[in-house]
């Protein structure tokens, strides 16, 4: 299970330590990540070329995936957030494909490992 999550770019050890060693809590919030609407909101905002909304969603998503130690996704979204902050919708939108792919891997890994 750990390996499956690690393969999706999730650093399970730092994630658990961020919850003060409470593995159950870490897994609970991994599960809740699936219900989080910020990724969907981001995709929608990019489609609508709404840079402010895209920034807000990307920024929140960055915070959450950072705290859940989704390192790969975190790095990508961090870069993307900065584009949106500058008002650069185009370069931010260009990253959407990559972000979606990594997001998809994370989502699958969680769905497979959690009951």
């Amino acid at each position, binding site marked *: 299970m750990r390996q499956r999550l690690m393969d999706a770019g999730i650093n399970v050890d730092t994630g658990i330590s961020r*919850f003060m060693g409470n593995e159950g809590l870490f897994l609970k919030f991994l599960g809740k990540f699936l219900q989080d609407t910020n990724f969907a909101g981001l995709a929608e905002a990019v489609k609508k070329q709404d840079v402010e909304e895209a920034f807000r969603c990307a920024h929140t998503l960055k915070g959450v995936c950072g705290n859940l130690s989704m390192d790969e996704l975190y790095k990508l979204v961090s870069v993307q957030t900065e584009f949106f902050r500058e008002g650069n919708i185009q370069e931010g939108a260009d990253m959407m494909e990559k972000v979606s792919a990594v997001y998809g891997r994370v989502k699958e890994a969680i769905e497979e490992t959690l009951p």
Partner: protein
Amino acid sequence: MEKKDILIVDDMEINRAILSQIFADRNKTLEAENGLEAIQILERQRNNIAAVLLDIVMPVMDGFQVMEKMAEMGLMDKIPVFLITANTSEESMSRGYQLGAMDIIEKPIVPYFVRRRVESVMELFSARERLSHVVELQGQKLRRQEQEIANLNYSIIESLSTAIEFRSGESGEHVKRIRHLTELLLEELRKTGKEEYDFSDKEIQEISQASILHDVGKIAISDLILNKPGRLTSEEFETMKTHTIMGCQVLEQIPQHKNNRLYQYAYDICRHHHERWDGGGYPDGLKGSQITVWSQVVSVADVFDALTNKRVYKPAIPAAEALEMIFKGECGAFNPEVLDSLERVLNQQKV
């Protein structure tokens, strides 16, 4: 009671959960989903909250607005605020510090660091609060001691003045009456609204206290003259007049108090309480407003009290009659405004 609660403000549940988990074993944590909720919690529980951990980007009311609101509530210097944010751009960090954030902590959170940084600042704030409490208590104690010393000083002045009164066969009530009448006259003069009579309550207190020393120079006048039942010869009267200057000489023996306002009033009153408005008084023959208001007032109070009370050389005269004598100029020449205020004080039957 020491504040122990930590308020965590973040729109994302996961972020609140992580922060809450860090402090769960030592502190009670309170959670708010947005700035408005945070302010509502602060309004209710400001006295229990030891720190605020605050996200910046939130719906309804963001972190910067929360800090502005906290500043309005006077809380920014009482409760340390930590910004917890994924947005570490220089612009937003400097805005955060400008608004009074104690520290800015980056997401993703590293629990150990967060705990150390937040706890050390909370400790700093609680130490500062303890100290300021100690300082406040010590300040109160100092003020109390200062008051005691002032009271003691005043008792000594009063004892000295009373001792001198006793030599003239007075009961010691004279100094108390002079003090009271001086105070009433100054308050009455102040009501005229004129600039020269615009004394503060403290100044009136000081002048009234100083007034009881007006005859301190009589200590240097021999009993034969001081207690002579009949009229004084002109030579004896000249000696009697020196009690004004002698009073100043007595006061000069306490040089370390020369900067004290009460001392300065007393010195002036000793010397000039026998000056006359028309310039015919002693020792300096000052005229009109050359005489300070306080010496003018004590001069009137002294004459009025001497008239209305029994002395070795005369019986007591009723107040109305005494006032009439003073107004007719039978007992000296005084500032008409001070006499008017004497009349008003008597009409109010305060004496």
